[in-house]
């Protein structure tokens, strides 16, 4: 019987350390599949964040570098300027990209840096114990908003994709989700598209992926997928916010 499903070449055979039901693993697979489909695994440099994905260098089967918290886009800039023919991507959480690393992501996008950011939005700080993230929903309970996020004192969630899509240099900006098989397929397509934009030298790309954190949300894996769909989608609408000139939004 022909093999129709296998481990992507761009993943090592090391077992993920992510919690049961965490969708970081699905997103890793989608990135790896895109690298395989484009045949660029050995021409790729990935940049890991600080966050639950800090060990991503153990999982992506390509050259990898681990950056300081929030600085992945600056590190990727340094790599890409030296190696303009390589595919360079960052993989970052919402604390990493949208709090401590806001300046780095905004300016990498503004410069039109030819890199791709995979932005995992799980509305919380996973690694450090479930604190409020810039993407935490109003009313959402976290360890630093024990009574629910209050708009008066902590503001409202940042919509990163919409914000970055105002920048000329960001030529591909999309928000996708992984809460259902259909959405996983669409997410994979967006990631691949973002990589293609980079390979064509068109500019900066970012794919925001809505993701679960059952552990810190205090939900079962299944409940977490439902919560993502019911609570996050209304605040973080899916879609392509920017595509290269001449291309149609799908």
């Amino acid at each position, binding site marked *: 019987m022909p093999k129709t499903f296998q481990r992507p070449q761009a993943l090592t055979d090391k077992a993920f350390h992510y919690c049961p039901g965490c969708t970081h693993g699905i997103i890793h697979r989608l990135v790896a599949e895109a690298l395989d489909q484009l045949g660029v*695994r*050995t*021409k*790729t*440099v990935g*940049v*890991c964040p600080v966050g639950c994905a*800090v*060990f991503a*260098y153990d999982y992506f*089967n*390509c*050259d*990898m*570098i*681990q*950056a*300081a918290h929030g*600085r992945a886009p*600056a*590190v*990727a*800039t*340094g*790599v*890409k*300027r*030296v*190696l303009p023919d*390589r*595919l360079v991507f960052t993989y970052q959480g919402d604390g990493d990209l949208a709090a401590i690393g806001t*300046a*780095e992501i*905004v*300016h990498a996008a503004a*410069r039109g840096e030819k890199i791709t950011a995979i932005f995992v939005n799980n509305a919380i700080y996973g690694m450090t114990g479930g604190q409020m993230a810039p993407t935490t929903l109003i009313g959402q309970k976290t360890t630093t908003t024990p009574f629910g996020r209050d708009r008066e004192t902590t503001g409202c969630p940042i919509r990163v994709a919409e914000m970055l899509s105002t920048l000329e240099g960001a030529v591909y900006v999309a928000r996708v989700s992984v809460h259902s098989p259909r959405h996983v397929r669409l997410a994979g397509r967006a990631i691949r598209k973002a990589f293609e934009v980079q390979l064509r030298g068109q500019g900066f790309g970012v794919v925001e992926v809505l993701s679960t954190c059952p552990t810190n949300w205090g939900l079962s894996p299944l409940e977490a997928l439902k919560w993502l769909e019911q609570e996050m989608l209304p605040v973080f609408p899916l879609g392509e916010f920017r595509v290269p000139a001449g291309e149609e939004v799908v």
Partner: protein
Amino acid sequence: MRLLPKVLMKGNEAFGEGAIRAGCRYTFAYPITPQSELAHFLARRLPEIGGVFVQAESEVAAINMVFGAAAAGARVMTSSSSPGISLMQEGISYIVGARLPCVVVNIMRGGPGLGNIAPAQGDYWQAVKGGGHGDYRHIVLAPASVPEIIELMELAFDLADKYRGPVMVVGDGILGQMMEPVELGSAEATPAVPAKPWAITGQEGRTTRNVISSLHIVPEENEKFNLELAATFAEIERVEQRYEEYRVEDAALVLVAFGTVARIAKAVVDRARAAGLPVGMIRPITLWPFPRDRIRQAVAQAAGFLVVEMSFGQMLEDVRLSVDGKKPVHFFGRPGGTVPTVREVFAEVEKIMGVTPDAQDFSTAAGVNR
């Protein structure tokens, strides 16, 4: 070797010229006085020779761009001044942790806080004691003339590659603004840079992939890594101590000063000698590793030392550690962006050597004694 004629060059440009001659083609920096001319020079020159200058959004970003470029195998530098160097400390710690070579220039200015843009040496401790978090050191070079800036920039890149770590080169606004003739020597092509098989360049052409990380989650593994670093630091302390000495042979009083202040100290030595006072000077060129061996040697012959700094006494501690209480170590400093004059320092020399009656009174109107 074809010798080029001497050209008049500004200190700030010499940092850039030295970097280019060392084969550096990448600079990431954020504007700050008094080093901006260095960035201007590189922004103009690097694209002419196929290099890249990126104006970063902050010094935090600049040093992390350096981190990425160094990891990709390039000779790379950044430059800044005191407040910006403070912002870079996290990145420098990561660069040490990932064992990456790069060069960081600090044109020091008066602090703390925003301080001022005047020449100062108040970042000595930050530079030589680590600066960022964790257990580490990096080489610190301190040129005292425009030709030496070029020479030490070339050396900085070689040492960075040799030991796989950051090298800091420190100066101040006087050195940066100073114009002096330099002989550029033979205009050789890009120098030989050692192979960097560890660089993250995409796996193509290699059988295994490369990973660069400063994370060692198991304490024993991190200890092992720290001990490897410690061994490198010990080796650097053993073989890289550099200094210049001036009329030390028969000196009863040895001045110790670096960078701009060493030029003043040299003039003081001449003035003292003219007055019949046996005074000499040791000028550390490497602030770390501190040239303690030479200072220790001088202890046997000298009756005392006078450390002169544009701070309230930072290198003073390293001199005292080297002298180890065996001889008196005096200090005269002007902190906050003020520059000691030859007259002031000479007056100190006269006091210490008992020429003036108030030899025991080390307080002066301007300046600090410790």
